[in-house]
């Protein structure tokens, strides 16, 4: 029997074309529309947001209203209360604004994501109907600002293992004590999701999650901490001293799909998967903007009688930036197409995407500063800000080291 094992090119190309990684028409429209908003609303205020005292919440509210983002979130939320599906939100609708905002102020993405996604999401997952009604709508429309408090001075990557904040049962309620740090929106939050160890926790339930309101006796929200970058996101510390809360503030533990066993830890881990994909979106925004600014500068900056783009060492930098841009864009498009097809990317893949994208953003933004030379080192230059901002992508949502270990462990276990 003769086996024809030549490649069937017609089939090959058909498959390739079907899965080709490009932006859809709608995605391009979304990008254009949000870019226009960002260039009109964020770009002119970048100086105040990054080097002044302008909090980002007003811009976030205007964005939410202008594009009907809050309305969609409320519709979905109300539908979910009735057990109905609600209007669909594609992954692109979530990730594209992150790309576009990150071209100017990545901090706004952090601030908005923590308030509308992490904080509201935690209450939606673990809240009773009453608790959801009480806190979620205002968070979704950004009428109120939310914080999600897990990190402590001595617990970062090992968020649960080293956690010291506690909830001590007291009558019907609990008494909360502890210190949280690096809390996004911490100085301004109206609604805080607070994760802590249960003082008399059992094997089934060692941790508990509470919802706190600004102004609770014993709760102190610090002024913004000074940090290396991401200044448009205000970060603070929370201090809880004998904060008395009723059972109405305790969220139910997340339910595992199989069996009745419950775990707040698995709920937080699920949140990490989406969070890691969003880092790739932020990285892409930073890379795109650094590349655009660098190409423009290489064309117009004249030294030794010629534009610096004529020098091969500058050309190498630009070419490497473009390679990074394409790679990160492809990873992001792969994620989007998987989600569109109903496939949830594994934590390993999300980790690999995050690891690569964060490192690429760091490398590209450092090289952008180098292309700009002395000008790039000046605080008034946008690439200087983006370079400081890029560093956090290697740290939050799981450090590079955590991503590496996640990926390697799964590979060694035979999983991907």
């Amino acid at each position, binding site marked *: 029997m003769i086996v024809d094992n030549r490649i069937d090119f017609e089939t090959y190309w058909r498959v390739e074309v079907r899965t080709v990684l490009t932006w859809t*028409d*709608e995605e391009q*429209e*979304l990008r254009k*529309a949000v870019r*226009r*908003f960002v260039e009109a609303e964020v770009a002119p205020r970048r100086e105040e947001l990054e080097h002044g005292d302008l909090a980002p919440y007003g811009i976030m509210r205007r964005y939410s209203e*202008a*594009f*009907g*983002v809050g*309305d*969609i979130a409320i519709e979905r939320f109300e539908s979910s209360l009735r057990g109905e599906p609600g*209007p669909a*939100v*594609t992954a692109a*609708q979530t990730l594209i604004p992150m790309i576009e905002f990150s071209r100017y102020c990545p901090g706004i993405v952090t601030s908005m994501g923590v308030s509308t996604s992490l904080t509201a999401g935690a209450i939606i997952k673990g809240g009773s109907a009453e608790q959801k009604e009480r806190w979620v709508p205002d968070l979704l429309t950004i009428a109120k600002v939310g914080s999600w408090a897990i990190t402590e001075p001595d617990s970062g990557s090992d968020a649960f293992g080293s956690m010291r904040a506690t909830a001590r049962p007291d009558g019907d309620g609990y008494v909360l004590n502890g210190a949280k740090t690096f809390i996004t929106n911490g100085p301004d939050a109206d609604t805080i999701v607070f994760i802590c160890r249960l003082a008399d926790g059992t094997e089934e339930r060692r941790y508990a999650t509470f919802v706190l309101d600004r102004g609770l006796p014993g709760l102190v929200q610090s002024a913004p901490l000074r940090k290396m970058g991401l200044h448009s996101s205000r970060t603070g510390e929370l201090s809880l001293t004998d904060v008395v809360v009723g059972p109405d503030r305790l969220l139910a533990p997340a339910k595992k799909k199989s069996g009745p066993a419950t775990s707040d830890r698995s709920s937080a881990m699920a949140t990490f998967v989406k969070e890691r994909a969003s880092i790739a979106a932020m990285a892409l925004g930073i890379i795109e903007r650094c590349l655009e600014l660098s190409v423009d500068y290489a064309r117009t900056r004249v030294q030794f009688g010629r534009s610096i783009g004529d020098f091969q060492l500058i050309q190498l930098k630009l070419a490497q930036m473009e390679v990074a841009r394409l790679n990160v864009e492809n990873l992001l498009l792969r994620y989007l197409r998987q989600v569109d097809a109903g496939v949830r990317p594994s934590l390993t893949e999300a980790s690999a995407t995050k690891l690569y994208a964060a490192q690429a953003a760091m490398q590209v933004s450092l090289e952008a500063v180098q292309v700009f030379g002395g000008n790039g080192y000046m605080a008034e230059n946008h690439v200087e800000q983006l370079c400081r901002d890029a560093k956090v992508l290697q740290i939050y949502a799981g450090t590079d080291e955590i991503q590496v270990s996640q990926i390697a462990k799964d590979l060694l276990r035979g999983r991907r």
Partner: protein
Amino acid sequence: MNIVVTVKQVPDTWAEKKLDAADKTVDRVSVDNVMNEMDEYGVEEALKIKEAHGGEVTVVTMGPAKAVETIRKALSMGADKAVHLTDDALHGSDALQTSAALAKVIATLSPDLVITATEASDARGGVMGALLAERLGLPQLTQARKVTVDPAAGKVSIERLADNGYALVEASLPAVVGVVEKINQPRYPSFKGIMAAKKKPLTTLSSGDAGLDAGSVGLAGAGSTVVDSQPAPPRQSGTIVKDEGDGGVKIADFLAAQKLI
């Protein structure tokens, strides 16, 4: 209210605008194209009137296949449906021909109100509103900074922008109204709007579908022709006056030479 709003795809405001070397028409291929910025005010006003009085907003454009992007933008802002007149034979049509073609399409829609911008940023003729009103046999209100529609009374009134204030002008419906940028703040297309735009009804017509004679449109039959064009001369570098103790005198002499003092 059955509202028609005209839109046009033009080269991006910031793009270097060029004429095609071969036929001296606007080069729409080598640049990014966007909805004429002033048309966004027209679309916004149409949507506001619809929101206040009910009805339907139909977007009408004439332009190459790519102009569908501009239609989609208007649909994503909230317009209900669109008509796209597109045909290679229409290429190079002048304002007279374009107005005849658009009027033919608009007449089939029987609008209560036709909204246009004051001008498009590519050719900047500023005549389309008047030409359409003439061809449709409708009254035209121009330079509107505010539009008030009273469907029950069958009239539309506007605040017409003037050099030293505004004039109140009204017309019976149906009418053609031209709006200025001061009239509103165009909305961003909502995420829902963007996702829904592709599903909204879009009628694509060739010149034949629209009942236009082949000879009545296009470059060959155009009444006006661009014969030649020259780019604007680059700005001359200024005169540098070096102050050697007599800077003030030199500046005064310069201003006097320009007859400014």
